[in-house]
């Protein structure tokens, strides 16, 4: 049992990791077929993984409803919305359109999900404004540099700024293409090295926290 629970997963990770690292360097059709098939399998497995997130959501709200904790009514609303959507979805065979006409599922998508999701994010527009007002101070030289760059880009990226101060357009282009590129590139190189190090540690079994539980397991 210990082997199945502990060594086997590590062995699988090791074999898969080594095999598909080297796959990259091997142009032979055998290697190409391997990645064709396995990437298709991964598509299917990651489809199942989607349900993993759903399971915990189901659980959390079910607990809220059965224990009737404050605000359980909202959890109930969530359940009703979810089950309603699923029922309508299957009833429409998962299609949003049939012969150019909208199905009930499509209607639900267009008039509830699209506005809800869009609105959630657009709230941030207000918060960014209040943050700009309250927190965006020239506290230090670094903060001042940040502030000036932000204001220039805000000017340069809209027609009114380009019209009033045409130079902001050119400066914005330069900031983005040269200074910003340099920083992003350095961050990219550093972070990629971190990612490669993590992948190597995972393959070699040094890093196991992705398997869950304590770090010694």
């Amino acid at each position, binding site marked *: 049992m210990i082997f*199945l629970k502990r060594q086997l997963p590590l062995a699988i990770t090791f074999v898969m990791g080594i095999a598909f690292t080297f796959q990259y360097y091997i142009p032979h059709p055998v290697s190409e077929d391997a990645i064709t098939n396995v990437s298709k399998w991964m598509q299917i497995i990651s489809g199942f993984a989607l349900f993993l997130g759903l399971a915990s959501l189901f659980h959390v709200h079910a607990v809220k409803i059965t224990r009737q904790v404050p605000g359980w009514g909202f959890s109930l*609303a969530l359940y009703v919305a979810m089950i309603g959507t*699923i029922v309508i979805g299957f009833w429409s065979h998962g299609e949003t359109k049939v012969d150019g006409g909208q199905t009930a599922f499509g209607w639900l998508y267009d008039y509830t999900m699209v506005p809800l999701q869009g609105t959630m994010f657009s709230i941030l*527009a207000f918060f960014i404004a209040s943050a700009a007002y309250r927190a965006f101070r020239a506290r230090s030289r670094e903060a001042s540099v940040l502030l000036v*760059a932000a204001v220039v880009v805000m000017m340069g990226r809209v027609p009114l700024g380009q019209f009033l101060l045409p130079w902001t357009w050119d400066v914005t282009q330069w900031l983005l293409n040269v200074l910003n590129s340099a920083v992003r590139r350095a961050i990219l190189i550093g972070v990629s090295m971190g990612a490669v190090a993590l992948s190597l540690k995972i*393959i070699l079994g040094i890093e196991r926290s992705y398997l869950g539980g304590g770090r010694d397991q």
Partner: protein
Amino acid sequence: MPEAMLPTEVVLGAWVAAGLTLFIYSFLYKDNPLFKLGEHLYVGISVGYSVVLAWHTVFLRLLWEPLQKAVGEAPASPDSYVLLIPATLGVFMLTRFIPQISWLSRIAFAFVVGFGSGVAIPRTISSYILKQIEDTVNPLLTMGAGGLTMGFDLAAPQSGVNTIILLVGVVSVLFYFFFSVEHTGAGMVTARTGIYFLMIAFGAAFGYTVMSRMSLLIGRFRDLITFAGAAYGYATLVLLAVTVLSLVGWELATRRKTGGASPE
């Protein structure tokens, strides 16, 4: 202005969309039941939508139909059943929440993470390291018709002067993230340069993000303005009044209950 007759479901949709939008915006006043309702509906509907689409795409299109076809064509061949391997691993993944057999999920994770790590290593080095080095290492001078020249044109991203700035930026920021030496002396100068580069990039990102968020707001307002039209029965305006009145009512009710202090 002639009034176009809109189909009932479109008008109904407009009322629902406008109502939900305003419920969410009521959060700007403070956290309140209308917002909570909108938010929970949002989670519920998007989860429901994902379930339906995942079922049709993953189970039917990628798994069930190909399996059915393969087995129908060659029921005796073991190759026809090969898709059962990923299906089993997928089911293993779902055992995570059943403590007695949750270890099965480790096998599935090992498979996915192992593949992901292996595939990522050479590609990361190729695209994010070698390719980035390649584009940073450029000659500072160019051989033109009139002999050696150095480009001082800031507007041309590939000019010599920009190559130097890029090089200084990349190296100084990399140095800032170098932890094995203390930032003193020349190291301090380099690290400080790195910080200034970082701050400029963050500033640019801030400006760009402001633009992004405002665009989202514009998009939502565009819908609200459309739905405020006569063709939609002035949905936005009516619902705005309803939302405001509900908030006032809620505020009064909670004040009475808690004796003055409003809840958060």
